[in-house]
Every structure is written in C-alpha cells, then in structure tokens.
C-alpha cells in the first residue's frame, strides 16, 4: 500500500486544537492590514470609473457570502475591473496601502476561499468576460479570467471543441477561479487535471506587476514552469487575469448509462465495473461517477424536476429498488453506432456477472441531460436541505467509500435519535427533513469522494464531532483532505494532514516571494504561523 508522510503525532495534536477552534470561526484579523479609507475609494473610483466600485451594503453583501451560506465576511467594497491594466493599478494601490484583497470569480467555491474573512476588499472578475481568441488548429482558447465556464464551453462547441473540464457549477463559475482552485469535475478522468490543460496564464502580482505567461504553446521547457504555481494557489500568489487552455476536439457521439450496483465493492474492485469499463470501453470512457442511495433520495426530494431513472416499479429485479449504489458511466467517441455496440456489450457482460443489478441507457439527449442533472444536482439539493458539512476527499479507489460508512457510525452513536439536540429541528419523529443525513457521491474513476453531512443548521457540537476526526481518518488512510475543492478558509489549518511540515515551510517561502506583505487572500490555504 502507498504510504504518505503525514505530520507527526505532536504536530497533529496542535493542529487538532486549532482545527477545532477554526471551522466556521474566523481567525483573528491581522492588524498589520490597513483599514479602508474614503481616500482609497476615491483612488478606486479614479481607476475604474463609474460602476466599477460597489459600496452599497446591500449590493456588497452577496460578495461577502459564500455559496453555501456558511461563511460571511465584512468587506465594505467590491472592485469590478474590466482590464488587466485596471487590476494592476488596483493592486499597486492596495499593496502601497497594505489593504488586504480577496480575488473572486463566480463565488461558487465550497471551502470559503472566495469571500472575505474580515474586511478585505473584494476584487471581482465579474466584468472580465471577453473571449480573447481561439486557435482552430490547436484548439487553444484564450479568455479573460471572469468568463463563465458554460459560456466558454458553448464557444468551444461552436468551433467543434470542448472545454477540458466540466463541473456542476459551470453556469456560474469563472475560468479564472477554476484555474486558481485547480477545479476537477467530471471530465478529469478523460482529460486529466488543469495542470496539463492550462497552456498559459496572465497574472497580476500583489505589487501590481503583470506577469505575462500567456503562451498557447503545447510544449515550452524554458526555466521553471511558473504558471503551475498559480494553478491551485487559490488567489494567494497573484490574481489570474487571463487563461489560455487546451480544448480537445469534441466527440460527436456520447452515450450514457445509469447503473444500479449491489455494493461499492462491485462498482470498483478488481473485476468490478470500473475495471471492466477501463478494459472494455478503454479510450471511449469519459466519465465514471457514483452516488449512494442517500444522495439519490436527497436529490429526488430537494432538486426540482429530478426523477429516479430506476423507480423500481417495473423492474424485473425487485431488489433494484433498494440498490445501495448507482453509477453514471459516459462514453464519448466518433460514432453513435460504435458507442452503442461497445456500451451494450459492456453492460451485457457486467450484468450477466451480477456486478450490475439493473440500469438504463439514455435514449436521447433529454434523458442523458436528466441523468446528469441528477448527479450534478446533488450539491444543490443538499443546499436546499439545510446546513452542509462538506468534505472533498481522495483515497485509493478501493478505500474511498469507507469514510462515509465511518462517518455514519460516528454520528449514529453520538445522536442515536438521528436528530441534533436542542434548538430548531431537534424534535425527533417522522419529520425526516430535519434528520442528520450522511451522503457520499463523487468521481469514482478518480478516487474522489464528496462526503456531505446534511443538518438542519450549523452546530458547534456537530462540527466538533466531525472535525478533526474526518481529517485524521483521511490522513490515517493516506488520503488527501482536499481532492479538488482546495483548502480555502475551511481547511487552511488542516494542510498538515496531507502535506509534511517541510512542504508547508516551502509553501510559506513561495508565498513570501510572490506576496511579501501577505495581502492576497489572507487567512486562506496556509495555516497561521
């Protein structure tokens, strides 16, 4: 088994205490940062002109709140530049004044990384949405950082290509934020992480210097590959203002199957469905996702328009209605007929062996869209249900679901009634909408599980029960405490569970080299010293 160095026990104890105190509680404000003055607003106004600076508290509010409603900052002003030159001028002023800044794209992050912790100035890329170029020969797409992923996907599709990433938030998330957080999503299985598909970046450093790395060459081995540092830096090293990204040719034909499997083991292990898919569908395989029954139930109940593809009423196998796991398997190739033949042969053999209980094959794009909406809508459905404790973990594929079962056991023993004690939603009984619910879903092909604990409200006692236990569990199983969401504010104190002290020290010196005053997205990614 692979082992990974983790922080020693002594350090883990220290981290554990901090992690307990952290979570939704804010770390103290760094008093070295200046307070925003009216004179600063005047400078911002002069740089951005009318409409570029927002100070009305009602309009500022959405920029201060994260998507889950878990974190809320007290920023007083939002800057909305349109050009790299404006970003540069703004940062030059902020660094001269030592004003802390939070870069923000679509604000769809799930770890509190894109909103202020205290009174940081929000630098939104919301108006930087221009598609700067598309090279039909190579498929290289260049766009300003605020361009919305779905818009770029449509632009690439029109030209016979596709973006190398896709995620549930594609309708709102910005490409700059995707790169800054090294977003994963459902196409990672096929196209690999952004470290491979991002060709070039333009970044404005904390002092306002513009770093032009906006090459669209596939190969470029000249010195250190600095752009890699910004991919996944979560806005702490510089503000990404433009992105060049490799768009693969779009596959003309995609086919989708939704399968019920008897156990997680049957889905993944040696001779399981995943292995069979890798062997038999090979280069056609474009997504291999899973959801557990609890995820399906939440989606059915809280996602408008969602329906169960396998309602079980007409199935020939009665226990399908109780199947514990479901898979979404997509293949993409050049011919509809070839896809269909490959998929059918694969399904016939896995079903014949009993590794698949039942399933459906989308007969048209409407059905395929419905199945994707179900899988991708779980995150949103959970938000409609209430408070969410969200953990984005990766493990060896064989071990990835263990954490969900362990979390269920832990909660069941602490809350035998299944409900939080005291306050709203505490009454036990038939009101299952308020019950604690542990769900697991994610990218099975990549060993990435989204463990979500849904509760009627955020609760310190519940949080203390989950954290740092979940990080300890992950470290003990050689997993990563953040597979694709990043560390942000939520997990900054916990980096030691997945990275050794020497690596964290090196990261600190890199941060100091890029942003000596620490004004860019403070309190995020790295633990407090």
């Amino acid at each position, binding site marked *: 088994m692979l082992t990974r160095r983790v922080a020693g026990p002594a350090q883990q104890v220290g981290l554990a205490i901090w992690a307990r105190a952290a979570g939704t509680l804010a770390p103290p404000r760094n008093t070295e940062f200046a307070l925003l003055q009216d004179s600063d607003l005047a400078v911002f106004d002069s740089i951005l002109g009318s409409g570029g600076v927002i100070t009305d508290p009602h309009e500022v509010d959405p920029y201060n709140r994260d998507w889950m409603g878990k974190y809320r900052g007290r920023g007083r002003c939002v800057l909305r530049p349109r050009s790299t030159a404006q970003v540069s001028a703004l940062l030059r002023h902020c660094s001269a004044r030592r004003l802390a800044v939070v870069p923000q794209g679509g604000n769809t992050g799930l770890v509190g990384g894109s909103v202020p912790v205290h009174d940081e100035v929000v630098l939104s890329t919301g108006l930087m949405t221009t598609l700067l170029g598309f090279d039909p020969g190579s498929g290289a797409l260049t766009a300003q950082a605020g361009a919305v992923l779905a818009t770029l996907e449509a632009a690439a599709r029109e030209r016979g290509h596709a973006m190398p990433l896709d995620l549930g938030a594609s309708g709102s998330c910005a490409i700059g934020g995707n790169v800054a957080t090294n977003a994963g999503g459902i196409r990672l299985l096929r196209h690999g992480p952004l470290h491979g598909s991002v060709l070039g970046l333009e970044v404005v450093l904390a002092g306002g210097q513009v770093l032009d790395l906006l090459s669209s060459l596939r190969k470029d081995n000249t010195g250190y590959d600095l752009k890699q540092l910004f991919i996944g830096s979560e806005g702490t090293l510089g503000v990404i203002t433009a992105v060049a990204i490799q768009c693969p040719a779009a596959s003309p*034909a995609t086919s989708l*199957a939704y399968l019920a499997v008897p156990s997680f083991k049957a889905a993944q292990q040696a001779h399981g469905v995943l292995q069979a898919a890798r062997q038999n569908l090979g280069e056609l395989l474009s997504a291999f996702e899973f959801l557990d029954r609890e995820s399906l139930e939440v989606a059915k109940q809280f996602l408008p328009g969602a329906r169960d593809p396998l309602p079980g009423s*007409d199935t020939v*196998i009665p226990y399908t209605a109780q199947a514990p796991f479901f898979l979404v398997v997509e293949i993409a190739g050049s011919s509809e007929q070839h896809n269909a033949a490959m998929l059918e042969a694969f399904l016939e053999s896995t079903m014949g062996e009993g590794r698949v209980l039942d399933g459906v*094959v*989308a007969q048209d794009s409407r059905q395929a869209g419905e199945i994707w909406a179900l899988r991708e809508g779980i995150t949103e459905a959970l938000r409609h249900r209430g408070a969410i404790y969200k953990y984005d973990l990766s493990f060896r594929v064989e071990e990835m679901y263990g954490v969900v079962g362990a979390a269920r056991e832990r909660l069941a023993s602490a809350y035998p009634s299944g409900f939080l004690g005291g306050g709203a939603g505490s009454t036990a009984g038939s009101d299952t909408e308020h019950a604690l619910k542990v769900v697991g879903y994610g990218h099975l092909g990549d060993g990435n599980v989204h463990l979500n604990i849904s509760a009627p409200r955020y609760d310190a006692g519940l949080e203390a029960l989950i954290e740092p236990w979940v990080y300890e569990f992950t470290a003990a199983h050689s997993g990563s405490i953040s597979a694709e969401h990043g560390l942000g504010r939520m997990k900054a104190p916990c980096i030691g569970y997945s990275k050794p002290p020497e690596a964290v020290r090196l990261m600190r010196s890199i941060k100091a080299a890029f942003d000596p005053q620490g004004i860019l997205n403070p309190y995020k990614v790295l633990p407090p010293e």
Partner: protein
Amino acid sequence: MRVLVAVKRVIDYNARVRVKPDKSGVDLKNVKMGMNPFCEIAVEEAVKLKEGGSASEVVAVTIGPKAAGDTLRTALAMGADRGVHVLEDGEVQPLAVAKLLAALTRREEATLCMLGKQAIDDDSNQTGQGLAGLLGWPQATFASKVVVDREAGRASVTREVDGGLETLSLKLPAVITADLRLNEPRYATLPNIMKAKKKKVDTVTAQELGVDITPRLKLVKVEEPAKRQAGVMLSSVKELVDRLRNEAKVI
C-alpha cells in the same frame, strides 16, 4: 385490444440544426437522431394501457430508412411487444404516412392508434388527423389524459385547450394523439433493451401495402430564421427615452 403506436426518427431536440447551403433542406449528416419526444409519450401511454390491462398487445410502427430501426428498438425496449418497419429511404409526407398507417391498422386489426401530436422536425401536426379521416374513426388530439373503458368500448380523453380542460368521450376504435403532459416516458432499462433485441420486427414496403407515397407537396426552400441583432446597454434613462423617441419612434 391491440394498440398501434407510431414512432418517428427525428433530429435530437438538442442538436444544432444546420440548413443545407442550397436551401433544399436540413443537413442530417453526423447529427444526433432519436425518437420524436411526442412519439415517446405515445409509446409510454400505450405500454401503460397494456400494463393496466386495457390493451392486450402494443405494436410499434416506424416509417423510414434502415436507421429508423433503432428508434423501433427503443419503442420495443420501452415495452412495445413487436414492431413493423416500413422501409422507405425517400421522403414520406404526412398524407402518405397516414395512408401507410391506415393500411397497417387494418392489417393488424388494431382498435386504437396512438401517435404523437406532431413531430419536432417538420411540426406538421397532420398525421393523426389524416389517419382518423382515412379510417373514418373518431379522433382525440392533444391528449393530456387517457382513460380506456374496455367493456364499454369507449375512451375518455382530456385535452388542454385555451380556456382550460376539455374532456371527450370516444367510441373505439379511435385515434389519439399525445400532448406533452400526458405522461413522463420511462427510461429503457438494460434487461428490457436486451429483451427488445429478441422481439419480432416485420419489414414491409409501401408497395407491399399497396400505398402510393408519391409526394404531393413541393418544397420550395428552407431558410434559417433571421438573426436577431445584439442588444445594447444604455447608460441612463435619458438616453433610453431619447432613443425610444428618435430612433425607434415609439414614443
């Protein structure tokens, strides 16, 4: 009671439709195709009638080239018992479709014909009505609810009309066309897809059915709708009033 349900292979509703440069029609090369959504609803309803005991057999019919056989298989995977494929490579217009279906209805001795209200490719909305006329049967189009009383030999059909809901009572045999809200078509499950491969499909030609399908209508040209001009952002109410008055001349 035997139900005949017609299914048409059309461009997937999500696919980008491209007009051929010579304006002679729509380019179908490398475009995703699938069953017309209203036909799917008709199949679902027919299968439900069988599951509910009102129908004894569901026969799915398609008219088109060899590839239309895939659409027929989808209908079989959804629960139709057997299929009939009228193999025809050329253009078949709504009147010809109605005549072919009438011939098959007689041959199969069907008591009920279920169709989609229209196909999303040419939006003709004529086939069901034409079929009822040719057979001399009562018709209920745009059905949003269907209840069959087998013993009374009648069907009660609810339709969404402008003012609300209208309910018709028809004497069987009859023709019913399906509207969007009649039902939610099921997914084709793996076991049913496999079973569908073994179901019987008859292949016939228009000639064998004695139907003349020579087109009666001439297609003049197909054009894309005019592109809408991009909008503009105005900076003030004053500017808006000015442009409404002087440019659009509406105030």
